């Protein structure tokens, strides 16, 4: 299933954290190819579409929409229809440039939070039950890490700092 495949991808992207965090209910960071705005948008989409607990089979977005496990098993699901970068690109780019400079000096560079809007449909078969929007803010980290051979490699990762349903309305019948 699509979401489970994405979850596998996510886990592989996930840094092998040696230590569990409080985040039994929280996602790990997501490795990205770069901190480019397109990669961030893609990563937020993957996050929303990720199955978080195998026991429920619900994606992150579906859990937030309070879709139940039973509804999901009857074919109801949330589909993301669009994703766009909302923040001022100039400010974000300036922050990303600073993150690279911090990394060059040996530190961990972290960008200012950037806003990304997702739009979604809740569907059951071909029927659209409702539509809505999610506003998410994310940061991107730039850091140098050792790979298994012990060589320095440049790594980028995204972390979600908020994920809020801002619009959720039922379709007119």
């Amino acid at each position: 299933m699509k979401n489970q495949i994405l979850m596998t991808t996510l886990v592989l992207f996930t840094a092998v954290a040696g230590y569990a965090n409080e985040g039994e209910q929280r996602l790990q960071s997501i490795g990205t190819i770069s901190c480019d705005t397109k990669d961030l948008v893609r990563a937020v989409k993957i996050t929303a579409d990720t199955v978080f607990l195998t026991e429920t089979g619900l994606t992150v977005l579906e859990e937030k929409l309070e879709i139940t496990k039973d509804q999901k098993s009857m074919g109801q699901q949330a589909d993301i229809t669009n994703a766009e970068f909302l923040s001022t690109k100039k400010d974000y780019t300036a922050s990303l440039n600073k993150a690279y400079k911090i990394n060059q000096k040996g530190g961990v560079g972290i960008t200012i939070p950037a806003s990304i809007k997702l739009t979604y449909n809740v569907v059951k078969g071909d029927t659209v039950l409702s539509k809505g929007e999610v506003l998410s803010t994310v940061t991107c980290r730039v850091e140098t890490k050792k790979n298994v051979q012990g060589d320095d490699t440049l790594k980028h990762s995204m972390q979600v700092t908020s994920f809020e349903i801002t619009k959720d309305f039922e379709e007119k019948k």
Partner: protein
Amino acid sequence: MRTKKIIMGLAIISVTHQSFAFSIGGTQIGGPKPKTPTEQQPAKKATTLVSIKPSLPIVNKLGKNPFNTDIAAKIESALGKFTQAPSLNPTVAYYETFPARNILPLTDVKMIDRSDDSDSVVLTDYVSIPGQSANGSALGLRMALVPEESRVRASQQMAENGLIKTGDLIVSTRPLFANSLQYLALQLLSTHISMAVVVNENGRKLVYNLDMPMDDKMMGGKNLGFGKSVMDASHFTEDNPNLMLHILRPRMESEAQRQNIQKWLEKALVKAREKKIYPSKLSFNTDYNSPMYREVNGKADLSFVADTARLLLGQSLTANDHLQQFCSEFAWVLLSLKDCNPDATSSDFKKGKIPACVSEFFKPMQMFGSAFSSGTAKDEDFYGMTDGIPMLINQTGANPQLSMQLIDFALPGKDKEAKGLSVGHKGVAALMAPLIKQTNGYFKLTLTRDAKQIDGARAMLNPNTPRNYSPTGFVVHAGMPDSVNGVKVAQKKLDYVVTIKYVPKAKLKDLQSK
């Protein structure tokens, strides 16, 4: 149209923060003018008043024959049985306990022998493994059994009687996960660290928990409102069944350091309540393997510590555009400010450099230390974050055969189901499986005392990751012996005080009154 605002479980908090005024010690501190109840968030709880009752002394059942089967049965009845190892104490796994010899003496805690008040907190011993030789130490816990229906009054009792102090670390530990995922055993079942802040409020002392993330799950107090959690936010009450809380005390060298920490933590509590720095300037780092701490040419870069101080002082970030810290990282950062008086050093922080008063609370740790091979107690890397299991076994004085059994008990080579743990964690556990397999062998190798072989294995196992200060690292500090071969362990910076377990009042009556 139906509009929802849902605080999510992704280290997430609403982006439309509302700040509100509040008080410590009856004086309003910071924040804009008070809003009407309908504007406040969370208005209903923030205005809740709880009547002030006289403080209760703590009931002391310590040292009343910890091996007494009657007492042990009552404790186990209160705690529930979590683990199923037939040869070991079945309630709490040994790797979730501390050497009895190192437990911090309670020299200044007010206690009584018994109480008829059902709100009374009871202190008692819990032995996991008795000492195994003449020089061996028992492993166990000093339990504080707390009536779960009376969390506010318990917070008052523990603060006013000095059982919990400002700066103490509150470690969330999960006995439920004993004998499940082996990587949780390597972490000594510790998953989160909060900090304790004791405040004088409306004529009484209370202990509040301060957390990263500064969100409702961690700091949304059920009784007194956001930022006034007396360990009654959902993390402590709903999300983690059978949670226990280890209290660890940072070693301070002076009263001035204690006062500095008091000031910094009160400022952090203020900022958390204002909701102005989290998560817009300082957010939760979900990757515990990637701290902000880095060494450049062998020298620590503490600019992120200085930037955190600036946020707490109401100043702008200078070295960074954004900060990201996990729970124990935030605690380590705050403790690394112990030599800075915020009132006196504010202008130093404003200059943009790192003031000289900023210093590492402890040297961030490697995965495995030198304690079992060529190291001496003077080494700053004597123990690593992952050394907890052999460090505890070693202190029992167990013979090699029992030691190996205890290692296999913790790391049996096979994971069992950990219900309620996220897919992400299970994925990480699966990825770590090869390392865990090697760790079992490495721990057994440490029993040989073959320094050359152990050092060789350690060099291969210590991965190419930055030094770190995970929750487990703090627990390992508290479990370290005070000295080895007569030499003081220089690395040790924390002491174990007590483990809090909230239990129904009905189960405590006999322990309180007899």
